[in-house]
């Protein structure tokens, strides 16, 4: 049963320096699910994603995906196991072109089929030869996600993708995530409650490093309910 | 009152013991140890408290030494005045140089200091050869007067003087550690943004620390000059830049007694080992790498840990009894 879980986190405790930031976090991702983690600034959302993907060490607890243990592994080993982290800062390799950015993704994953990327993000096709540093925020976000889906990862950890983006792009991303969930599971961290409530099957509310609620079902997954728990 | 006594007692005991050691160990060795440890405490302070490593300490050593040497060679015979001149020269030099150097990132700082040491070396060797006599150096042993509270031409009296000076230097650094300034220095190393927010000027603190550390180094230079009665550019040659760094790491960074312990070990090892181990540099290099890799707290830290464990064991046994 556990082996089929796309992602399983048990008893995770994380400190940053002297400060204990995450307390006894339990979460899981079933197949083809979109799960959201909401919380105020400083609640620990990015820390959560970073510890799962190996960028921050864990004090205790385990993270597994398909029965493989992720805790203690290097970030690139975790990425190779099919768990990809899409960070918050919309940073791409600015000195490289869009095509070269994708090339790196292909090189890492061995997947040279860019069709899914172009299908999701047709605009990238036009931008192939442009230096990534010259892209707008929305285009960078698309490139980051496009890069991450090469290699057909099973788990995507996406950190505040819609921050600072225009509504039309946010809408586009909404569809992309829904499509993606047909072949992967997504753990998305967001402040944009309407978006999150529209696409997620479950929502975890993170408050001061602890999960204070797990919302399931249409009547619970609503912005006002989320607000209540935060 | 008893607090003051207690504060001084550590220093008193340590330096009394150091002085007494000359009955057991050769005097030239002890003299070297004392002066070298003054040389090192500046470097230790800079690295341990402010977080800067300098590969160019010999530059400031040379400035102090040559300041004294020029006076004694060309002008007068009073060694105390000569030392004062050397220290002042070192201080002014550090003040000026510090204005530029202290703004740099730690790696640039280290490298720039190294370049400075090489420049000074070159200047002493070639550019100013007319007044420095180049590689031949300046000899002025006979110029040193034997008057004054200590007759510095006699090794034993020099030694007593040097130990006294060292004790004062240590007291100064210990005092600073306990004051706000010491805390600020540590803070600039650990979290400079926060310090700025509280309203302290990182630059000024670093600059002050830099001047203090290098003036101490210059002072060591003046002591060398008086002790040997001789200076030469070799003291700041590229090969010499390693000495203070190695001793600092060996003794333990950031501890008050690290420089003393480190110097004792380093000088002792060098004298003993170079008779048996022909290749001193290989040995030193490996020690340095080993200490860094094993995250050691240096000799002093290790000794301290042992001592503490020993005392704890004793206390536990007493409790049981």
């Amino acid at each position, binding site marked *: 049963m556990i082996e089929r879980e796309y992602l399983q986190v048990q008893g995770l405790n994380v400190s940053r320096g002297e400060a204990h930031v995450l307390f006894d976090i339990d979460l899981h991702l079933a197949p083809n699910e979109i799960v959201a983690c909401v919380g105020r600034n400083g609640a620990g959302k990015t820390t959560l994603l970073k510890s799962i993907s190996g960028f921050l060490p864990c004090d205790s607890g385990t993270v597994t995906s398909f029965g493989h243990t992720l805790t203690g592994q290097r*970030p*690139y080993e975790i990425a190779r196991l099919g768990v990809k982290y899409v960070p918050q800062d919309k940073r791409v390799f600015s000195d490289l072109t869009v095509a*070269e950015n994708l090339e790196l993704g292909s090189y890492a994953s061995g997947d040279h089929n860019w069709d899914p990327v172009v299908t999701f993000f047709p605009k990238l096709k036009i931008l192939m030869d442009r230096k990534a540093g010259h892209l707008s925020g929305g285009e960078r976000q698309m490139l980051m996600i496009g890069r991450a889906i090469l*290699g057909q990862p099973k788990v995507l950890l996406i950190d505040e993708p819609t921050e600072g983006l225009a509504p039309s792009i946010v809408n586009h991303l909404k569809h992309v995530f829904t499509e993606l969930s047909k072949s992967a599971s997504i753990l998305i961290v967001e402040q944009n409650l309407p978006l999150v409530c529209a696409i997620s099957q479950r929502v975890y509310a993170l408050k001061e490093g602890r999960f204070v609620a797990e919302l399931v079902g249409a009547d619970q997954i609503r912005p006002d309910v989320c607000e209540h728990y935060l | 009152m008893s607090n003051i006594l207690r504060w001084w007692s550590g220093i008193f005991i340590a330096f009394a013991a150091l002085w007494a050691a000359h009955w057991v160990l050769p005097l030239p060795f002890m003299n070297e140890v004392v002066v070298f440890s003054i040389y090192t405490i500046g470097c230790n302070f800079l690295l341990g408290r402010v977080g800067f490593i300098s590969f160019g300490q010999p530059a400031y050593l040379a400035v102090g030494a040559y300041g004294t040497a020029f006076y004694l060679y060309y002008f007068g015979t009073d060694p105390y005045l000569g030392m004062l001149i050397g220290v002042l020269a070192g201080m002014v030099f550090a003040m000026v140089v510090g204005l530029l150097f202290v703004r740099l990132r730690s790696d640039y700082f280290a490298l720039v200091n190294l370049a400075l040491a090489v*420049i000074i070396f070159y200047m002493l060797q070639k550019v100013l050869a007319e007044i420095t006599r180049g590689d031949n150096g300046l000899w002025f042993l006979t110029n040193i007067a034997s008057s004054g509270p200590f007759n510095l031409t006699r090794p034993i009296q020099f030694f007593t003087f040097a130990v006294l000076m060292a004790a004062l230097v240590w007291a100064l650094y210990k005092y600073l550690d306990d004051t706000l300034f010491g805390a600020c220095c540590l803070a600039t190393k650990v979290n400079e943004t926060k310090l700025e927010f509280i309203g302290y000027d990182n630059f000024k603190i670093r600059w002050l620390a830099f001047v203090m550390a290098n003036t101490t180094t210059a002072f060591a230079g003046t002591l060398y000059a008086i002790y040997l009665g001789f200076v030469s550019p070799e003291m700041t040659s590229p090969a010499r830049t390693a000495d203070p760094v190695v001793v600092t790491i060996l003794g333990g960074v950031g501890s008050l007694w690290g420089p003393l312990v480190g110097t004792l070990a380093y000088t002792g090892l060098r004298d003993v080992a170079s008779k048996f181990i022909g290749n001193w540099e290989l040995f030193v290099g490996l020690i340095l790498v080993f200490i860094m890799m094993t995250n050691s707290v240096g000799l002093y830290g290790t000794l301290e840990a042992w001592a503490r464990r020993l005392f704890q064991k004793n206390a536990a046994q007493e409790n049981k009894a």
Partner: protein
Amino acid sequence: MSSQLLVSGVIFGLSLASIYFLISIGLSLCFGLMRIISLDQLLYYTVGAYLAYSVSVATGNLWLGIGAGVIVAAVLALLIERVVFRRIYERELTFSMITSFGLLLGGIGAVKGIWGVVPRPVRMPFDDQINLFGTDIPVYRLLVIAVAVLVYIGIWAFLNRTIIGKAIRAGIEDMEHVEGLGINAARLFTITFVLAGALSALAGGMYAPLIMVDPHMGLEVLAFVFMVVIIGGLGSIKGTLYSSLLVGQVVSIGSLIYAPLAIMAPFAMMMLILLVRPTGLFGSALAK
């Protein structure tokens, strides 16, 4: 100054620049990608020179010597990277500075132990001179310059046309993201480090016939190489190229005008530049 002197001064400056460039590239790349200061590059430089000496004396062929030097130094660099640096990548800069300094020192000791302290001469493979702009220039010096140019082109091609090179460029900008894609960071680091060592050894081997090979040669060049990387800025290949050329010319022409200028001028230049830009002309900041 006669034009003959000037021409030979310029050529001399260019060959100096070539040597500085080869060593500085390694230092700059190691900093840019791994955030370490690798002072032990000067050790690979020394090893390259000494092996060029030994092998050329044994076989009469300098090129074999240079080749041997590059290979041995690369292997040495590989070992050191695996055993030492791999454990200290996450630490602050001073850590790698002190550790690499220890390695350099220890290495110099080893060199002394193996070859002794007496400086060794290395025979130039050919004494030919060629007449350029009315001056006789040793062809060997031109060869050194040519090799450096080839290396620059090679590095450029590597960084811009190969996938590993692009990964390195990406890593210099943001190593976390590179790892997040699934690229093996450890392997990238090793490749960069060994490349740096090989280039430093090439510099040592090529330079050997022009100077005497002695155990402290690394320390003597150290100050100049530092000035080059500081002026150009750590982490920038372009910066390294420009500052090598600049420092090379300043040292060379400077020494023709007034001998002490050879070291004073680059130092003064470095100080001036640092006043305006504390991380050098093209230097990258440390904060990620």
